[in-house]
Each structure stands twice: as C-alpha cells, then as structure tokens.
C-alpha cells in the first residue's frame, strides 16, 4: 500500500477514538514541551552568563593571589607594586592597561539610611578596562588618585537605597566607614545578570581606600585586571604577566603563588557549568517524554486487542505481516509526531512565559530555542513513536488469521 494511503487510514483510526488519541498525544506534548522549554532555559542561561562575562571588558586577564592547582608555601599577596611592574611596557609589551582593585564590604550611611555595600578602590584606567560608564558625573582623574581625594562613584541601586533616587546626586555626601565622601558620579545601570546585581556598589580612588577605609592598611590589592592590546595578544600577555610576577615573588619553579585567568578561561568554565545544567534540565524533561512513550505503547496494545478481528479480516483478505506492521507503526508514529509538533509550539510558548516571569522577578534573561533543540525533540519523539510502537505492531502482525477471526 502507498504511504499516503497508510497515513490516511492511520488518521481515520485515530480519529475514531478522539478522546483516547488526544490523551495519548497529550503525554507526548508535555514531554516534548518540557524538553524544548528546559533546553531553551538552559541555553538562555548560558547565553546570559556568557554575555555578562563578555560585558566585563575586552581581552581581560584576571590576576589573583594564590593558586588552587599547586601547593604553595606562604603565597605572597598581590600589591600595588606588582601592578605597577605589570604596566612596564618593555617587560610586558602585550599589556595595554593594568587596573588593580582593592575591595571591602564597608558600612555606608547617608540621609538617615545605613547599608553594607561592596566598596572598591580603583584607578582611573579602571573605567576603560572594565567598560564602566557613568549616567552622570565624571570618573576619577590621576589628580584625584595622587591627592587621595575623598570622592566616590556610586551604583544605581545603592543610590536608590541611600537617597531614594538615582540621579541628581553629584555633590551629595555619603559616609563610608563614618568618613564623608563627596559623590562625583553615578554608574550607569548594568542590570542584574545571572552573576548578581552590578548596581549595588561604590567606587573610590585606590589610594583613598588604602589611606582611609577598613581593609586598606597596606599595599595589598585583591585583584589585578590586565587588558591585553588585542585578542591575539591575550596568551602572550598572560605569559608576560606570569613571568614578571614569578620574578617579583621569587617563586619556586613550577609553583606559582598567583593565578592568571583569562576571560576565555572564565567563559569555558561557565559554559561547562551551564552545559551540565542544561543536560540536567533536559534529562529530567526527557523522562516525561519517556513516560509519554509508554503511554503510546499502552494505548497501542489496547488497540491491537480491540481490533483483533479487524486484523484477522485484513489478513484473510491478503494483508501480509509487513502490511499490518506498517499500519500500526503508522498510527503510533502519527501519535508521537502530532504530539511532537504541538509540543514544540507549547514548549516555545512556555519558554516565552518563563522569560516574562524572569523579567517580573527582575532577573531578566532571554530563553533561546535553538534549531538543534527543535530537531532533537522531533527526532526523539519520532523515535519514541517507533520504539514504543514496534512491540504492539509486532504483536498485531504475528496474530494467526484463524485465531484472530474467531476472536470475539
């Protein structure tokens, strides 16, 4: 029999039991929709995290003290002097700019409000290296740095907490650890990414932090951001930075007491984490697809028993084993195929819904339905229709015509 004929007959017979076919399809719809939506969320999370890592800046290296890969005795902290050495154009020709940061969690107050906020001591080049932009005011100058000026740049959320507004704040005074700082700028909102809010923080000049704030007593810095001159120069910049620090820290051969991390390292770490996350979500969703498949098998088995006489008659009229097999496989594939198509649409809607919820919860991220996940879900549901259809179809095809015709 021709394929179209087979499909039409399969449709007719599914149509004869609308309720039953509908519920069976629903099982597959839920499974496929769950897979599509979960893969969408996973891919979206990955894109969002990748995005926020890329937002940090371009061609950035992160230099930390300590090394998780090796046993280091007495690791030396990174210092301002280390940062200055890295900026040496002859020793490190691949380095464009160096931005050391000293950080602390400090008490801030103003306008009768109190809060504990992350305060960072930064250098003027920080704005360029880390893509910081201001919604008002100006970034620190070299003169501010030299003069240890008591000035601060604050994030939008911090501004909202302390002053209950986000603009018109230049010239206001805020107290950090009880000391007054004049506000000279407000950071533009970076939004809350998957890595937490970037808008609840305060920047002060590095020298001011060291001189006046808690945790800034010596030359120690928490992290040094290094910008390479180009994307291609990132590996050589990493090598130059390591070489300089090894010399300065007099480390044993092969045992660095610091870690140089490139943006690419961060990206691949984050991607492997979100990859696991995606597989995990997709796996759970796939279980419901499996359950839907078992539903198909169940219904097909019932259908074979109910139609025993019909099968016997068809065999008496000359249907071969293969004809019966094809007929029942067509029905199960149609069930899973229809379920797959509806499920893809529903999953897409579900992903859009999750996106809306994430916006409402103030942690917006885009879900990403990729062609891959659509193909995967389609193939998977078709395979499930065939796999779970084969046993019932085979049962139907192996019926003896004499027995089947006698069946009441």
């Amino acid at each position, binding site marked *: *029999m*021709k394929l179209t*004929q087979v499909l039409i007959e399969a449709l*007719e*017979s599914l149509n*004869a039991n609308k309720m039953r076919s509908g519920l069976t399809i629903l099982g597959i719809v839920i499974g496929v929709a769950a897979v599509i939506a979960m893969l969408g969320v996973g891919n979206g999370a990955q894109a969002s995290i990748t995005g926020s890592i890329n937002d940090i800046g371009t061609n950035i290296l992160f230099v930390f003290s300590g090394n998780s890969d090796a046993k280091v005795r007495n690791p030396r902290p990174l210092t301002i002097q280390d940062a200055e050495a890295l900026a040496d154009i002859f020793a490190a020709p691949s380095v464009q700019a160096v931005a050391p940061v000293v950080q602390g969690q400090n008490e801030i107050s103003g306008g009768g409000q109190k809060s504990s906020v992350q305060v960072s001591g930064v250098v003027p080049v920080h704005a360029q290296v880390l893509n910081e932009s201001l919604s008002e005011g100006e970034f620190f100058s070299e003169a501010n740095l030299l003069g240890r000026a008591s000035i601060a740049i604050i994030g939008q959320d911090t501004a909202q907490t302390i002053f209950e507004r986000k603009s018109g704040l230049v010239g206001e005074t805020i107290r950090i650890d009880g000391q007054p700082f004049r506000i000279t700028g407000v950071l533009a909102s970076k939004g809350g990414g998957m890595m937490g809010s970037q808008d609840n923080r305060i920047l002060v000049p590095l020298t001011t932090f060291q001189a006046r704030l808690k945790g800034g007593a010596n030359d120690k810095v928490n992290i040094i951001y290094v910008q390479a001159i180009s994307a291609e120069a990132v590996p050589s910049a990493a090598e130059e930075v390591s070489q300089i620090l090894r010399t300065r820290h007099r480390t044993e051969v092969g045992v660095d007491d610091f870690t140089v991390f490139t943006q690419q390292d961060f990206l691949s770490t984050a991607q492997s984490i979100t990859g696991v996350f995606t597989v995990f979500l997709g796996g759970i969703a796939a279980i419901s697809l499996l359950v839907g498949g078992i539903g198909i098998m169940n219904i097909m088995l019932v259908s074979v028993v109910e139609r025993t*006489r*019909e099968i016997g*008659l*068809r*065999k*008496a*009229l*000359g*249907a*071969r*084993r*293969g*004809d019966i097999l094809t007929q029942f496989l067509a029905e199960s594939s149609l069930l899973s195929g229809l379920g797959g198509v509806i499920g893809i649409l529903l999953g897409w809607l579900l992903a859009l819904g999750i996106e809306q919820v994430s916006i409402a919860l103030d942690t917006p991220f885009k879900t990403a339905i990729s062609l891959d996940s659509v193909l995967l879900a389609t193939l998977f549901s078709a395979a499930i229709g065939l796999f779970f259809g084969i046993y019932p179809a085979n049962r139907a095809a192996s019926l*003896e*015509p*004499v027995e089947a*015709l006698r069946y009441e």
Partner: protein
Amino acid sequence: MSETVISAKNLTKVYKMGDMEVHALRGLSLDIYKGEVVAIVGPSGSGKSTLMNILGCLDLPSSGEYSLDGEQVANLTDDQLADIRNRKVGFVFQSFNLLSRQTALSNVELPLRYAGQVEGRKERARQALIAVGLEDRISHRPYELSGGQQQRVAIARALVNDPAIIMADEPTGNLDSKVGQEIMDLILTLNKERGTTLIIITHDPRVAAQAGRTIHVIDGVVEGQEQ
C-alpha cells in the same frame, strides 16, 4: 466439470490443547471442480471449520497434500499464504466482517490495495458493487446499510479480485430467511455468470439443497456426497 480447482489428499490437522491432541481432520480427501457449487455440511465439531480454514489458506494442514488452482499450498510461508488468499480466495463470513469506519467502496477496495493495485482500483471496486446491486450505496458506511446490504458488500469484496474460489461460511446465518434467500440467489447467479467456484459451509439444509453437490464431513473425514 473437468478441471480441478481444489485437490486435497489425506489432509490431517492436529491441535494441541494442553496435553491432549485433538484430531480435527483425519485423512480427509476431496476434489472440487471449476465452476462447481459445493456445500460442506456436518455437525459442529466435525472439522468442517478446520477444513474451510485449510481450503481457504488461512491455515496449513498438519500433513497431506493440498493444491489450489494448480498451486501446492503446503510448506508455504505466512506471506506466501497471504498472497494466495489475496489472489485466489474470496471470503464471505457469517458476520459480514466489514470495516465499520470505511465506506462500502473502501471495503471492497481492500483486497486490491493489498494486491498492490493502484490504477483502476476504484473502478473495479465500483463494478463489483454494481454486480451485487448496490450502485446507489457506494459511499455508505456499514452502519448505514441493512444486514442483507452489508452481506452484498462482503460478496462484492470477495469477488473483486477475480478469485478462483469463493469460501462462504454460513453466508445466510445472520439474515432472516427472505433476505437469506436473496443472498443465495445472488451468489448462485454470480457463480453462473462468472463461473467462480463456490464453496458454502452451512448447517442449513435449505441452503445445502441449492448446491450442485453436498459433502458431509463427520469426525474429520468425508462421510458421503450427494449430487
């Protein structure tokens, strides 16, 4: 009546039911000639249903030889048997056995579909329905037809593929006597017009009386024949 259509020699059929062996046929032999109308009668349990299944190629004998329209049937595979049923046998059942969701035309087309025929299929099915007097019921479904009309559809389905034999198993069993007689008249007329060999399995002596020959089957063997 010279050409044999059915030639069966020493057919036996043994069923296993638990530990017991049931001998449904015990060395039955018979010949049926082209164009004949033969009634097979016998009490229930006599083996006549088993005989019909074997003659209609629904089942294989345990031993013995059987040739249908010149083809040896023993030792064929399931698919080869399906082919022979499709080409050489038309079945008419007591309970009609039509596909309830499909129209009369689709029901009649079914054997042609399994024969792989595409071209002219609908036209052949339509001609068969006209031959049984249902030209105005072609696109009706079985539940829209009376019992007699349903049996006519089944007859059209049996002869659409021009089979060598038509096996009718109690064809009038589910019909009242008037309609039953109409059906008998129809299949006897078709037998005369087309020369298709007709084998009727029946309990009903009035039906058997209309056959050219009656074969009595008792305890799995032929006990007697009357012309």
